[in-house]
């Protein structure tokens, strides 16, 4: 097995040449992205260094409550990011989203690290945190797409939803097409990722393991588990969150509460 080749600081700085290329492209094409590229670069370096030190500390501490605390912070941050993308002012959805993400991702991460990988203790941070991170990151994007789509379609098709209500539909029947469309829109990227994996791209986790010297045949097994886990956790969390949010779009008399902005 190959030894890991450590990247020195001067070598790391060499990688900045890629950023330089991006900056020059933005300047030449007048894309106006130079500020964003600079901020992105600084954030990437500082956030990852911070994460590196934090993970080193957490892995060393081997503390259950610290591990779970990090998990809660990760979910909280994900909800915060979803909130930034969805920008819904009328219907509150943050608390049920947080609670659902917390419980469903916890069960997924627990299932994978304890039963599939077989780590003891089940909360071993070296396994639990990266697993949770992948689940949260992937499902966060799916949820943001689904929730945003649900609200925008409820607004756009408000008259059609009310037409169905007036013909005797309950709120689920009146919004079933919108609900299905929003759910599918969120889940399709995870399903597409299963189609392209190994052919079009090598996933980040597997690349990382291979670069770190792991046998590719071991790395693919981890990747298969991760791909299945991502599709499953996205489906579970999306269905639960979306059902709760859809109910909140209607009042006690099943009247549509989402009004044009």
């Amino acid at each position, binding site marked *: 097995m190959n030894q890991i080749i450590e990247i020195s600081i001067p070598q790391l700085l060499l990688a900045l040449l890629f950023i330089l290329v991006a900056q020059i492209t933005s300047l030449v094409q007048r894309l106006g992205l130079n500020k964003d590229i600079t901020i992105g670069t600084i954030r990437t370096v500082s956030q990852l260094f911070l994460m590196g030190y934090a993970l080193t500390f957490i892995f060393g501490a081997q503390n259950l409550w610290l591990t779970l605390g990090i998990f809660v912070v990760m979910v909280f941050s994900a909800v915060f990011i979803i909130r930034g993308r969805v920008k819904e002012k009328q219907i509150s959805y943050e608390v049920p989203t947080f609670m659902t993400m917390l419980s469903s991702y916890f069960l997924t991460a627990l299932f994978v690290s304890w039963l599939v990988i077989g780590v003891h203790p089940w909360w071993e941070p070296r396994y639990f945190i990266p697993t949770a991170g992948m689940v949260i990151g992937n499902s966060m994007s799916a949820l943001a797409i689904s929730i945003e789509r649900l609200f925008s379609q409820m607004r756009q098709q408000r008259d059609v939803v*009310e*037409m169905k209500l*007036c013909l005797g*539909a*309950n709120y689920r*029947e009146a919004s079933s097409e919108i609900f299905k469309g929003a759910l599918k829109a969120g889940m399709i990227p995870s399903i597409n990722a299963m189609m392209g994996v190994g052919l079009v791209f090598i996933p980040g986790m597997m690349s990382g393991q291979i670069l770190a010297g792991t046998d590719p045949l071991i790395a693919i097994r981890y990747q298969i588990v991760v791909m299945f886990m991502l599709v499953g956790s996205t489906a579970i969390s999306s269905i639960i969150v979306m059902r709760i949010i859809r109910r909140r779009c209607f009042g006690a008399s099943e*009247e549509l509460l989402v009004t044009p902005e």
Partner: protein
Amino acid sequence: MHPLLEIRDLSFGYDKGSSPVFEHLDLDVRQGECIVVKGASGSGKSTLLRLICRLNIPRSGAILFKGTSVAEIPPPELRSKISYVQQIPQMIDGSIRDNLLLPFTFAQGAHKTAPDDATLERMLDAFYLHEVSLDQSALKLSVGQKQRLSIMRTILTGPDMLLLDEPTSALDADSAAMVFSIIERLNTEEGKTLFIVTHSDYQPAVSQVRSCTFRNGKLECA
């Protein structure tokens, strides 16, 4: 005997603290009556219809249907007994048949027998839609045709009362005349209780008609 619909001390405003659209509104509607409500834009005419079928919720007061508060009737049941026909007719992406049978796909209408093609075709004729076929796309119809189809679809569910929100506002004179004729027949021949909101000068040629006007947040009936 209870009136079919009783409106008691009804007030409505959009937001808490905002001035009310109307206040302390009272009205009794008897079986077979045709109520025509007029008033300026924004006076609350359409809102009143939406409150009756609980698409909006009143700030205070009560609406009783056959002596029972509409708030206590399960919404799908309420809305199939008191059917609201929207100002702009809405169709699903499908054939005319798909649209007409839509209410029978919902749990509320599932136990009812869906009409067969021969019945639907007879009804299309009665609604001045002889030129269309059941397999035709509903989205391609004119607004006037959609409005007549929309009223027909509502009638198929067998409501006791129809709430018609500006049914001819988007129509040309010929289409409007057809809709008025249908409305009058529904009342005189089928005994349907009608609640029509309009800002035209339309006066239905039916015997049990009553005109009401919204003025300064109050409903004045003749």
